[in-house]
């Protein structure tokens, strides 16, 4: 596939798009792990959702 004189522009576009998407996915995945770990730590330390049922419903 020959992309002519502007190969670098096209490649940069695709790479940048890939990079941004990967960063987004990575951020969301890592964030998920962090929150999960924190929840687990909190629950291990004896704070259960039930003890504060009302407080934990997203308010």
């Amino acid at each position, binding site marked *: 596939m020959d992309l*002519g004189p502007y190969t670098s*522009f096209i490649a940069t*576009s*695709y790479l*940048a*798009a890939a990079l941004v998407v990967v960063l987004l996915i990575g951020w969301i995945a890592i964030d998920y792990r962090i929150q999960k770990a924190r929840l687990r730590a909190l629950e291990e330390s004896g*704070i259960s959702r039930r*003890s504060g049922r009302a407080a934990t419903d997203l308010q």
Partner: protein
Amino acid sequence: MSLIDLANPTRFLALAARLLPWLALVTVVLLAAGLYLSAQAPDDYQQGATVKIMFIHVPNAWLSMFVWGVMSIASLGTLVWRHPLADVAAKAAAPIGASFTFLALLTGSLWGRPMWGTYWEWDARLTSVLILFLMYLGLMALWRAVEDPTRAARAAAVLTLVGAINLPIIKFSVDWWNTLHQPASVMRMGGTALDKSFLIPLLVMAVGFSFLFITLHVAAMRNEILRRRVRSLQMLQARAYSGSAPAGSATGQIAGAA
């Protein structure tokens, strides 16, 4: 599964866990197909191979506006119906929308250099996208400025809605502003009469990016719900052990009243 059920964050988490793998799969398939099709697409007689940038540029440009629309609807949900998931949806969408806008700007500039000979032109459409980007960033700054998510949500909702009114205004006024000083020095591709060989890959890519957005959005909403759960558990923890704080102080009792 009714809307009421979805309003329950726990239900949402369960649903998200079931849906996410499928959403991700559809996204991957669509994007792979789109990439393959766009690689196969012929060169444009005028623009040469650079037309390939279109296949990312246009979906991202569309999504940049679409996401603000999603956030506006969510904001109505926050302000009018006080739906418990609405502000989660709005907050989770902002960084994703900002990323798409950034990509639209970036790929547009990279396309502009070979086409117009400059990375940037103060043209109506370009400028209004740039402002959209700034508004995304401002909104994210607002979310960051307030520690309590429910209070932040209402402020952000007002701003989102006002921004939604403002965007078309900017779009039109910028048109005006441009022609006032000098004729549009911007040439651009015909646009509407797009050949099938470009249209199909473009549409596949657009649908693929839309699914990417949905997938990421659901995942980000899940994170946000967990984050709030962590926050309220931390607050409980702050109270739980405090030396001699009276147990059961959370419930009100009446002594000797009425």
